């Protein structure tokens, strides 16, 4: 059986998405056997060259180096997969505090002295290249990462769930935090597939998987306003993983 050639790379991120793959302890050895991990700096120190059957890319693009790396991967790979919220939406690093510019942020951290950090606002991969498939989550779910690998082995991409977090949340018979406790739960507008991890422990969905396809954002906003949250707070929460939302979107 021929082993698909994979590149697994990280741009600006916490490495959690790559770690999620390394966390598939039970399957890891078999993954290593069935794939040719040509380029996986986090776990392999020898770099094989292009071409790749698939490049799985974690993280947002925020430096010229990231961009060069991304272009290299895109050009040398048949499929490019965006892995995780940062790669798809920008993620936490793309969040801004609503007041400072990027330069000010950099200056705040490094001082405006001799050091110049070459960086720009973290942006999703699709701003620069075409992306063939995405797996969302901060971090993504193990079984979705495995579903991707299994499908790649099979020459396809996996069919992932497309419903909001609430669907799984209800199916797990959790208490609805939005309805019953009037908490700031983003479940209705967030892409499910995580089996409603957070509400299952009694904690609101913070929206780590980004918007579901048909998010009724305007209505969610209304629901939260009705429950007494301030508009600023709601927007701050919503933009934690995806900086820009269309707050008027109803379909």
């Amino acid at each position, binding site marked *: 059986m021929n082993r698909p050639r994979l590149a697994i790379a990280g741009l600006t991120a916490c490495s959690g998405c790559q770690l999620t793959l390394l966390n598939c302890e039970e399957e890891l050895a078999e993954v290593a056997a069935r794939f040719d991990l040509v380029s996986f700096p986090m776990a392999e120190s020898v770099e094989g060259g292009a071409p790749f059957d698939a490049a799985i890319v974690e993280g947002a693009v925020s430096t010229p180096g990231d961009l060069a790396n991304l272009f290299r991967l895109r050009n040398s790979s048949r499929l490019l997969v965006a892995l995780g919220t940062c790669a798809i939406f920008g993620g936490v690093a793309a969040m801004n505090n609503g007041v400072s510019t990027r330069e000010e942020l950099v200056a705040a951290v490094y001082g405006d002295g001799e050091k110049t950090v070459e960086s720009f606002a973290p942006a999703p991969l699709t701003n620069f290249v075409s992306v063939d498939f995405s797996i969302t989550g901060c971090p993504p779910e193990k079984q979705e990462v495995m579903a991707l690998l299994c499908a790649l082995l099979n020459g*396809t991409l996996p069919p992932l769930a497309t419903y909001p977090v609430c669907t799984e949340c209800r199916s797990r018979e959790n208490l609805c935090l939005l309805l019953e406790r009037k908490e700031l739960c983003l479940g209705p507008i967030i892409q499910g597939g995580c089996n409603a991890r957070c509400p299952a422990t009694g904690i609101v969905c913070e929206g780590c998987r980004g918007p579901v396809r048909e998010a009724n954002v305007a209505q969610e906003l209304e629901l939260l306003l009705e429950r007494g949250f301030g508009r600023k707070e709601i927007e701050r929460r919503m933009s934690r993983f995806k900086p820009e939302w269309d707050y008027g979107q109803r379909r």
Partner: protein
Amino acid sequence: MTLLANHPDTPFAAKLLQRRQLSEDTALFTVAPEAAALPSLSRFIPGQFVQLSVPGAGEIPISPADLAHEDGTVDLCVRRVGHVTDALHQAPEGSTLGLRGPFGAGFPLAEMTGHPVLLLAGGLGIAPLRSLLLHLLQNGERFGEITLMYGAKKPTLMLFREELAELAARGGLRLYLTVDFAPEEPWGGFSCAVGLLPDLLKGFSFDAANSYAAICGPPALYRCLGADLERAGVAPQRILLSLERRMRCGIGRCCHCALGQKLCCVDGPVFRLSELKEIPEAL
């Protein structure tokens, strides 16, 4: 624990015998189901569909593009559009697939007997209509005049062109082809109009009052062609449309394919225009 009969969604094993590329994104797949499947699968009516499984990818509804073959093999003409069809197009000859069916209501052949039939195919819609056409031609003596109008986006996407031309040449079939766009460079070999299917129909004179019409193609086609045919004088009960809906189970349970209170998989996929007119969101 008692285990009852086998799940109705269990496909029979089937072997991919041959793949013949018909256009850039469409190929004809000849599939041989295992012996146990033959009693059911070798007896489908044109217009019915089968559920085709590609292991590891999933299952999709496909209408056979040919009549049932003597040896039990089935011809499926499939366009590469997404998840399962992608996998199918990559499957090497000899690989194992799954097949179950046939499902749904096909064309009302008995009722059509003795009447002229006008077939209108848009794009991939030729697949199920080819099956009907072959049936009509095979039983030519029992049907009236047979006409096929077939429109494709461009000449290279015209499926079965040579075969159709040959059938027309043998007589018994009036064939009209049209393409939406004429390519820059001349295309040789066959004569073909440029324009949409409804344009072809415009100048066409036929025994409308006595005819049946069968339409299969993209949804936009149904809306205008149905009205045109009615205006030309074909009774809406005799305008037959083969509809596409999302289908999961094929046996009326998953509910994706509902149109109004009907289910495309059990009540269709072939419907009469007269039925569909009662259902606002059908077309």
